[in-house]
């Protein structure tokens, strides 16, 4: 337990987290400092490209069977998180059902930047993980968003006076894949599988990774603080959800990852990564899909909960927890 605490504190001193906090302070003190839009879009591109390329290169050398089970688990977790939210958050007093479904959708979906922080931490700590695990991201992201949109539309269809929006699963999937984030990831994966991008990966995407991650953390911090303010307008239950849900989701991810460890020899690093994917919540790619799919839901509620609290909480609190857990359990 002391061991666990030590590792936890050590994690808190990482510069990545410090950049996140710095971003929040910048915003709190109302500074005019901003990372130009083109630069953080580029930072997002660099991170997702690195995740994708590394994933693709790893898939090229992996056998499909070992990937299949974790991928399936991701789909199940994505759907499960939203259903879990539907019977908890959505049932709470004063919570609009469509707002709740939208929020759960984002928490089932995945944050590329959170994965990037986890990857950097693994690389620094020299913990091996299968490069393709972070690239499983869409397998959890898309099912979660679809489930949320379907639940919301079933609910709204039952309401009086509401026009039934026609929800086509194919359309939602297309919409997700066409978004900038997933497109970048998929390009990376495809290039990793079908070409030999090792040299550009090693000379460009990999060495610049930690720098651009810091820059994205600054931006996320600024954004998070701004979104916090909006949360005040909505029910306090969202705050409770943002703090508790990621831990539950992460533990589910850890548990299923552990099963994969036994069944298909998923590495300890891979198990921790499963926990992180499950715990993380979408901050960049998810919101527009939800906005389009559940237009009646209040963005202040779901973006405030997800970008304003969820991302920060996962990176600052639960990432250290899952690493500490993995290190203790697997004796790393």
């Amino acid at each position, binding site marked *: 337990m002391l061991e666990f605490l030590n590792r936890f504190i050590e994690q808190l001193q990482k510069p990545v987290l410090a950049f996140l906090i710095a971003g929040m302070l910048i915003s709190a003190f109302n500074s005019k400092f*901003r*990372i130009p*839009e083109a630069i*953080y879009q580029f930072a*997002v591109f660099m991170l997702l490209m690195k995740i994708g390329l590394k994933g693709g290169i790893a898939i090229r050398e992996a056998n499909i069977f070992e990937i299949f089970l974790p991928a399936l688990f991701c789909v199940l977790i994505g759907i499960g998180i939203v259903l879990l939210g539907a019977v908890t958050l959505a049932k709470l007093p004063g919570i609009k059902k469509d707002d709740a479904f939208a929020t759960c959708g984002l928490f089932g979906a995945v944050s590329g930047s959170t994965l990037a922080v986890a990857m950097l931490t693994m690389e620094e700590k020299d913990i091996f993980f299968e490069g393709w695990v972070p690239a499983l991201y869409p397998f959890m992201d898309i099912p979660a968003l679809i489930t949320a949109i379907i639940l919301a539309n079933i609910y709204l269809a039952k309401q009086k006076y509401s026009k039934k929006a026609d929800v086509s699963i194919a359309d939602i999937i297309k919409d997700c894949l066409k978004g900038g984030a997933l497109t970048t990831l998929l390009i990376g994966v495809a290039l990793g599988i079908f070409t030999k991008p090792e040299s550009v990966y090693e000379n460009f995407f990999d060495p610049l990774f930690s720098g651009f991650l810091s820059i994205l953390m600054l*931006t*996320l911090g*600024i*954004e998070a603080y701004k979104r916090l303010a*909006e949360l005040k307008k909505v029910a306090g239950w969202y705050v409770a959800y943002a703090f508790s849900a990621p831990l539950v989701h992460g533990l589910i991810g850890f548990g299923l990852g552990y099963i994969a460890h036994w069944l298909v020899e998923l590495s300890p690093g891979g198990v921790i990564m499963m926990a992180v994917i499950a715990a993380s919540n979408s*901050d*960049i*790619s*998810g*919101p*527009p899909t939800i*906005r*389009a799919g559940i*237009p*009646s839901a209040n*963005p*202040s509620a779901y*973006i405030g909960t997800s*970008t304003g609290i969820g991302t920060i909480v996962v990176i600052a609190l639960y990432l250290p927890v899952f690493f500490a857990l993995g290190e203790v359990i697997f004796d790393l």
Partner: protein
Amino acid sequence: MKFYKIKKLTVITEAAILDNVLELATELGADSYTIDRVSGKGEKGVRFGMDSDISGMLTNVRIEIITHEELAKKIAVEVEANFFQNYAGIVYLQDVEVIQARKFNIKE
């Protein structure tokens, strides 16, 4: 040279629904338009545009369509009815005078 009176319709709304608004306008019969990104504040809060808006959810677009009064009004009404329940947005009309009669389908 003659100047013809015609209308300019402006829609300011969330960038997220730009494609949907354009689709609606096109269906109703407008096939030319000008677009730019703007920031703003309204009932639905501050929408600060390009300024660290990582999910692109707070960006506004301004769509301008120069066309005949009737069509301009029809698009205005339909856009308002279809989108502004759920999305931030305003719509307004202005008088303009043009000279390119053919381009704006004006009978000379």
